[in-house]
């Protein structure tokens, strides 16, 4: 997940230098940086495909190293010249300090991962998908009892020895057009409105329920009837549109 362009195995010029120092098994404070300049340059040459930003980062340090080396080769060395080197050594030391701390912190992280806490309670249904069921507890209980009763009847039916689990083969006796006309007639006969249930001959016939609903939707589309519902999940009341107007 962490994204940082890396040149080869090195996170940056200091990292490369640090690893060279370590590879040579020298204490940072004792190292003559001039000695590993060659090696540093060799690695830079090996890094291909790096971008300008990165290249410049590596080059800055390369030039620092070259400068140190050049000074070393020249006569008349004075104390001031040593400063560049000691500055770089100091930076390396500080880099090492944090590199080690980072390793230690990772151990903390691993240890911390071994403790658990109660996760934040998750909402069952998030955000917009939330259902707002605006019914009282009593109504809810009634609905539950209706469902329970329906289920019971269903089970009783199944206990009937004459009941066959096998599906009956029925002729295709339902079609939307026919049903639509039926509903239209029923609704006209009952200006006070009818319940969805009243439109079904057999309330357990899923096919009939589907066809009836489709017919009803068709009638609504044709603006023949209107459907009212007091609340979500409450019973649909179907009224002839002419009665409404």
């Amino acid at each position: 997940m962490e994204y940082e362009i890396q040149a080869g195995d090195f996170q940056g010029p200091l990292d490369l230098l640090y690893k060279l120092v370590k590879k040579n098994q020298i204490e940072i404070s004792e190292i003559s940086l001039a000695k590993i300049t060659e090696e540093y340059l060799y690695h830079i040459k090996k890094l291909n495909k790096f971008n300008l930003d990165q290249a410049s980062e590596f080059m800055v340090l390369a030039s620092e190293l070259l400068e140190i080396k050049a000074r070393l080769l020249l006569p008349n060395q004075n104390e001031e010249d040593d400063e560049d080197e000691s500055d770089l050594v100091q930076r390396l030391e500080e880099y090492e300090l944090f590199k080690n701390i980072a390793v230690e912190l990772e151990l903390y992280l691993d240890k911390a991962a071994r403790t658990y806490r109660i996760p934040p309670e998750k909402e069952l249904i998030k955000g917009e998908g939330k259902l707002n069921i605006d019914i009282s507890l009593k109504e809810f209980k009634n609905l539950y009892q209706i469902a329970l009763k329906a289920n019971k009847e269903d089970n009783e039916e199944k206990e009937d020895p004459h009941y066959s689990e096998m599906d009956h083969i029925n002729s295709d006796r339902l079609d939307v057009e026919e049903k639509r006309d039926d509903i239209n007639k029923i609704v006209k006969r009952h200006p006070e409105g009818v319940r969805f249930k009243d439109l079904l001959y057999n309330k357990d016939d899923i096919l009939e329920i589907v066809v009836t609903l489709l017919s009803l939707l068709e009638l609504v589309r044709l603006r023949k009837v209107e459907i009212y519902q007091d609340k979500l999940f409450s019973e649909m009341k179907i009224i002839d549109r002419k009665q409404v107007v």
Partner: protein
Amino acid sequence: MEEIDLARVEAFIFAAEEPMPIKVISNAVDLNKRECRKCIDKLRKKYSKKEHGIILKEYDDKYIFKTKSQMASFISKYYEKEREFKLSSAALETLSIIAYKQPVTRSEIEEIRGVKAEKTLFTLSKYNLIKELGRKDSIGNPILYGTTDEFLEHFDITDLSELPPLEDGKNNKDKYSDNN
């Protein structure tokens, strides 16, 4: 201290989803901070006993119950804990620098690591481990970075003074130098 107060403090912290600041706890249970701290101390002692599998954790004066780390071996088999993030060594190094040197600017971090820190800082802020503390009163008014409370919790550190002393790194050099 009344027993009921102890129970109330315990219940309130238990129900919390995030570490709870002492101020919020004392308001909620209607105790002053001093009494509240007494309750917390007592609870902490109580839960640190061996007979308890949970412990009262403190992060920068915020409190939350967690399971003891000794319990992890079997808990982890049943409750998969998603580690929210995996930090690269670059991110860890940058985070270490911020933790010890805060408030610190980006260029100060880059100076130490010798590479650009922009992307790493972005990652660390994305995980809420660091935040902007303000602006430095120098040329360009650079942003000052520091660690967050989430940092403490993720690393299970009570407060910044509990960070390993910087010299530790130096002394343990031999121990870790082969990790590269």
